[in-house]
């Protein structure tokens, strides 16, 4: 057994336990709906955290990749009658290539300039989805067929819940593997000091492009799942506010913490849904939570609580 033990195994088991037990406490399909959206957002955030939290690079345009994945599924399955899994994979492959080509020039930028570059990228994707009405239905949106794998269809909310829960666990597992490897260490080194990383033999430009592509592919897959689950897409999935939401989730939950990304997604997806009184003030809740976190817990929820507990235990 010892050979299988890794320090992060405990975290995965805890997350699996939470996912397994949670349905008992969900009274009706509305709550399942929220839980499924949490899972989808969490998959995006786990990927985005590799870019923002670990490699220290910002993206204000990742909703664009989410939306491209979603529209690939919508269009290929609906219009061209592809099997959903194939559409999802092709969408992810396309997003991988696109993000690779974009990252080559964009990831040379730093700080504010990188934020501006990725912001522009997201806006262009959003405009294309709005304008290509023939394909995407334009601003009116488009309906999306249901999901299926070799004839199996997640019909009920509960089966969707298990599907998304399982995929989230896989996403977390992959991200943890990456972080606890020389690749992850190189990414964090890029965050710490680019010049020192390159002197140590880390090809900084290559790692920046790599992590950008990985995070984009996570977003694309989540976007495909979202498309099938919600059954309807509009270009607003690609808009700037959605990108900001995703970044907020990562920062709130905790930079450079995989479980932090999950917690951030859970908190910021659940809050506006459960506290319906806030509905008109959703933006305000996001903005305020980001400000409060930045002032009182600069490292985000999970890392702050972690160090609090480990200090107590000592």
């Amino acid at each position, binding site marked *: 057994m010892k*050979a299988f033990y*890794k320090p992060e195994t405990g975290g995965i088991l805890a997350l699996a336990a939470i996912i397994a037990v949670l349905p008992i406490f969900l009274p009706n399909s509305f709550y399942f709906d929220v839980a499924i959206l949490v899972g989808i957002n969490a998959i995006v955030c786990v990927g985005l955290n590799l870019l923002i939290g670990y490699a*220290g690079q910002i993206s204000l345009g990742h909703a664009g990749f989410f939306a491209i994945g979603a529209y690939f599924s919508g269009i290929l399955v609906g219009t061209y009658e592809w099997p959903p899994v194939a559409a999802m994979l092709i969408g992810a492959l396309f997003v991988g290539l696109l993000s690779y080509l974009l990252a080559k020039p964009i990831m040379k930028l730093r700080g504010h300039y990188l934020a501006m570059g990725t912001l522009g990228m997201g806006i262009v994707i959003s405009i294309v989805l709005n304008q290509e009405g023939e394909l995407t239905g334009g601003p009116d949106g488009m309906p999306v067929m249901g999901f299926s794998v070799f004839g199996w269809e997640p019909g009920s909310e509960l089966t969707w819940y298990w599907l998304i829960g399982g995929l989230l666990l896989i996403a977390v*597992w*992959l991200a*943890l*593997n*990456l972080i*606890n*490897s*020389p*690749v*992850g*260490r*190189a990414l*964090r*080194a890029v*965050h*710490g*000091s680019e*010049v*020192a*990383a*390159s*002197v*140590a*033999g*880390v*090809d*900084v430009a290559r790692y920046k492009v*790599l992590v950008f592509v990985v995070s984009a592919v996570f977003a694309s897959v989540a976007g495909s799942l979202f498309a099938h689950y919600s059954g309807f897409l509009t270009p607003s999935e690609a808009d700037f506010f959605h990108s900001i939401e995703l970044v907020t989730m990562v920062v709130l939950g905790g930079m*450079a913490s995989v479980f932090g990304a999950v917690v951030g997604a859970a908190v910021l997806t659940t809050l506006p849904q459960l506290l319906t009184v806030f509905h008109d003030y959703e933006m305000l809740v996001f903005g305020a939570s980001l400000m409060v976190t930045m002032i009182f817990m600069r490292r985000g929820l999970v890392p702050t609580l972690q160090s609090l507990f480990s200090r107590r235990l000592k």
Partner: protein
Amino acid sequence: MTLLRVENLNMVFGGIHAVENLDFKIKSGTIHSIIGPNGAGKTTLFNLITSVYRATTGRIFFDDQDITEVSTYALAEHGISRTFQNLQIFFNMSAVENVMVGNHRKTDSRFLPALFGLPSIRQGERDCRQRAEQLMCDIGLERYIGSDADSMPYGALKWLEIARALASQPRMLLLDEPAAGLNPSETHEIDDLIKRIADMGITVVLVEHDMKLVMGVSDHILVLDSGRKLAEGTAEEIRQNPDVLEAYLGHRQRAR
């Protein structure tokens, strides 16, 4: 044997000639110091050798290979490593992880095996950590093996940077002001460490303002002034060179 050969090197920033027509050689297995007043171009020279800057003109050869155009990260493969005048520590990591990064080119950093957490990657990580801990013990940092880099004192961080540079098993190590900001007893320890590094067969290139340290350890000294070579030779030769005295103490005419 010549390990590093710099030929007619020039670096121009805007109108400023930071390095001008510089030629010199560094013999393998020696401790070679580069001294000069502030702004003489010492750190610029390090940045040129490690490709952090691209030379305006001129060539740099390492072990008879032209490395002028080789990227910084690829120089680790050639066996060149360095430390920095202003610390460049990965403060988002533990001390051991800092040293482990130094070993990057020897670790298996293929993407897919890492993504799926293959056993070979995990075994490699354990070995890499063990080597890093061993190196920290060797260099006298065993107290900080469990520490985060951001909780370490300044002096220890200087050692940590050297440990990280040594982790890449360089053939030539460039030390940019290792004694800056250290107290006399710490400087004395740096003195010992530099000699130990040289004994390992690593060629040391030292930029330093502490003359006692420089004169004590150097086999060969290169003096720069305003980007140009002012003098070159052993510690004794440099001490008696009138040009060097003039650069450091001022022109004789001014005394009149």
